[in-house]
């Protein structure tokens, strides 16, 4: 295959674009897609302080690199989840990336800071590990951003992630979740703005970006995610994409451009009912926020077990 732009030997084909690219033009394609995502969705302005949620995986490290390439002032935040060797290797990848580039990586270890980790939360609350993990990370990302004056939190959600979440939300008609599923969630009282600059890039592209730039990311899959529903949705969508290239992009971009507005009010109603958590002060629709309730449940089970 030849590069669509310069006819040099290609390194990656992207069937939904009906195109292949050489190394140089593939990297340019990634920068252009992120630039377009940021501009089209008004994600952030020049000079704003960005906090990148960094897991040590391909998406978050590619995102951090791309935002720096595009001239943004971006620090990283790593949350230690306590998932054994997987977390150790992920943390190492994030630290190495930051150290080699002289970047600031903030670090919050769930066990040290909040007295629990993801395996313990899942085991003691019978919540899914991914549910406890997502809840914890969202809380920490937001509170660090608010406490340290960042304008925006950027996460590495890519096109495949958004397509899988959208499929799950549509299958169960989760209208509140559909109202909140957007590349930009605006700031509100106690909430930093949240953006997903990679939503126009597939995960094959973010992985290729890292390989071609020699970014050493955590390749292994999280052992606690194995067999989860999200991965099942991705498998279905990959099969669909193989038969019908462009299906995932049409699904996600069509939702963002033409359908999301129909669900926006549902998310707005939830935000109107927000008040401060009685324990931590974070915005919540209940007296005590879901994060503090999780901590309390893990803590009380630990006391009973002693």
């Amino acid at each position, binding site marked *: 295959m030849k590069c669509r732009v310069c006819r040099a030997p290609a390194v990656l084909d992207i069937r939904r674009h009906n195109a292949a690219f050489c190394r140089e033009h593939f990297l340019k394609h990634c920068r252009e897609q992120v630039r377009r995502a940021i501009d089209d969705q008004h994600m952030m302005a020049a000079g704003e302080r960005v906090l990148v949620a960094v897991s040590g995986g391909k998406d978050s490290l590619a995102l951090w690199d791309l935002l720096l390439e595009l001239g943004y002032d971006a620090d990283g935040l790593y949350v230690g989840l306590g998932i054994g060797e997987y977390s150790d290797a992920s943390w190492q990848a994030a630290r190495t990336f930051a150290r080699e580039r002289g970047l600031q990586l903030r670090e919050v270890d769930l066990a040290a800071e909040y007295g629990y980790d993801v395996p313990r939360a899942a085991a003691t609350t019978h919540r899914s590990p991914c549910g406890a993990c997502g809840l914890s990370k969202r809380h920490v990302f937001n509170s660090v951003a608010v406490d340290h004056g960042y304008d925006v939190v950027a996460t590495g959600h890519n096109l495949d992630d958004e397509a899988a979440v959208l499929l799950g939300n549509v299958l169960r008609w989760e209208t509140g979740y559909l109202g909140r599923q957007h590349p930009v969630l605006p700031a509100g009282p106690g909430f930093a703005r949240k953006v997903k600059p990679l939503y126009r890039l597939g995960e094959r592209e973010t992985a290729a970006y890292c390989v071609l730039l020699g970014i050493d990311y955590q390749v292994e899959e999280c052992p606690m995610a194995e067999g989860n529903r*999200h991965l099942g949705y991705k498998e279905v969508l990959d099969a669909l994409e193989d038969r019908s290239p462009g299906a995932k992009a049409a699904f996600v971009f069509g939702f963002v451009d033409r359908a999301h507005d129909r669900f926006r009010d549902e998310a707005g109603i939830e935000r109107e009912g927000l008040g401060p958590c009685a324990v931590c002060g974070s915005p919540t629709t209940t007296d005590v926020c879901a994060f503090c309730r999780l901590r309390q449940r893990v803590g009380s089970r630990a006391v009973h077990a002693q």
Partner: protein
Amino acid sequence: MVLRNPRRELEMPGPLTVAALLEQLEVNPESVLVIQGDTLVTRDARLSDADVVEIRPVTSGGAE
């Protein structure tokens, strides 16, 4: 070749294209990268007996 997640090594007789290799392994090309050295190879690339490639899954999970 080296396959990841879980990591294992296989030998396949060449020559064959990347597309044929993935088909024989029943791997969806949308879900992997094929890596040779420090670069990537497209599905029409021909691999010989002596070539060493890594087939790396790109799908990551972890959502509610």
